[in-house]
């Protein structure tokens, strides 16, 4: 048995197999796998007895449900107005410089992906970013170097 298939079965057992359980199942797969492969989406469709197109349509609607392979740590830098005013571009440059990737890319070792996202709700402590589910605020290029070197040691 494939690992993802097992995971999907477990999630369906845990949440249920009705349509309203689709989002928690998609989220569960993304939590483990970091993204939804075509294979996962078809398996979820099979498990919930839904057309695969419906699963695909739902999954691709949500910006946190990635459908392209992502790194272990997904960095999402807030680009909405206040963060953008308070130096978001310098933060991006510092991250790009340190990880040697551009926005939208994943490092060669598959550990980090760099994305932008819309308002994270930390405008009073801008600029802000998420690494997976954890939030970091009042960022400076120095802070970025500290935070990322901690992650690199993990």
């Amino acid at each position, binding site marked *: 048995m494939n690992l993802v298939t097992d995971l999907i079965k477990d999630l369906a057992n845990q949440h249920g197999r*009705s*349509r*309203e*359980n*689709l*989002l*928690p199942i*998609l*989220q569960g797969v993304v939590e483990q796998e970091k993204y939804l492969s075509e294979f996962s989406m078809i398996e979820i469709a099979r498990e919930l007895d839904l057309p695969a197109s419906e699963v695909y*349509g*739902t999954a691709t*609607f*949500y*910006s*946190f*449900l990635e459908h392209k392979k992502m790194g272990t740590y997904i960095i999402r830098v807030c*680009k*909405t*107005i*206040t963060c*953008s*005013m308070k130096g978001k571009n310098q933060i991006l440059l510092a991250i790009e410089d340190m990880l040697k990737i551009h926005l939208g890319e994943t490092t060669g070792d598959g550990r980090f992906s760099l994305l932008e*996202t*819309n*308002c*994270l*709700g*930390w*405008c*009073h*402590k*801008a600029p802000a970013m*998420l690494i997976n*589910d*954890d*939030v970091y605020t009042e960022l400076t290029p120095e802070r970025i170097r500290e935070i990322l070197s901690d992650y690199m040691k993990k």
Partner: protein
Amino acid sequence: MVTNYQLKRVDFIFRNENDYEDVLSKTIARKPQELINELISSELKGRGGAGFPTGLKWKLSSESKADEKYVICNADEGEPGTFKDREILSKVPFKVLTAMAVCGHVIGAKRGFIYLRGEYKYLKPELEKAISEFAYYCKEIKFDFSIHIFMGSGAYICGEETALFESMEGKRGEPRNKPPYPTNSGYMNKPTVINNVETLAHTFTIFKYGAKRFYDLGVQYSRGSKLFSVSGDTPKPGIYELELGMSLADFVDEFGDGDTKAVQVGGASGFLVPRKKFDVTAIGYQGKLTGISLPTGGSMMLFNSSRSMYNVLDNYLEFFREESCGQCTPCRVGCQQLIKGIKAVKRGEKNAKYLDKLLRLTETMQLTAKCGLGQSVANSFSSIVENFREEMIY
């Protein structure tokens, strides 16, 4: 001057009151009708931004006949510049849970959900702890009401109530046609009360202290206090609870950096107010007596003279273009064309008159878009373009 109102700080929401058990048991001992009347007389309006009277919402749901009803707390706080709901959920979660349970008692619902945006996933463990403590107390007093968290996954539009229901039902977060309204047909097509986090927290205050305490704050049509999320060019960004009805001039005196050029009230979907209109603008819901009165979900972003309003508008439009659900044409195509349009004017490919064409496009969007997202693009667009036209061109 719209009003002689001074800025008044209030401390209701975050006041630490470790007595939710007491408030809950006392409140659910009262009749639903009595609680609805209390809420109506407080004149509390929805704090998410739309400002629908909360008492009326509860009343309509309570009158709907159905075998199952739901209470939903909308914690999909995605409006740029808003961050108060996160603070409420992490500092005073029991007020929100208590209010949800009271609402369940009033309308006859046994289940409640908190729709928490994916960006706030780090709040989930603590919130779950609070919910299980709360559930334990409900069991103790034999009150049948359960609360669950439903996680969002990064979609601004899911803050729109009907899109939120679609999302909870496992679908794309695309808004529904209204009517039917949620009070008749909401989540799973059952009568649903859906309230913003802050609105629920205010009902706690009202049920504990009585409607009068709340009603005595604020001005006509805009009663009570409200949390404001202050950010941008200000020496003291943060969350402040203030009485409604203050003039923007007073607000800027308190929070500005001395060089405030404009304030965006209500986030990207709100209005930009230029310096010359600070005096005549009040913060509150539309009323007959006031001049310009701006409702808001509490997002107040200040810009000083170093900021380019073109960049601000470009940032908002980019936001809307990405967050538009794509379902209706006016919004999907409109947002794309507005961005293309202002860029073309800036580059000199189109002359300045083209801005008037774009303004007409936003009017069309306001009339024809299916939901609040597409309709409100016109707010920031017209208020920025009309007041800072030269910055759009040169």
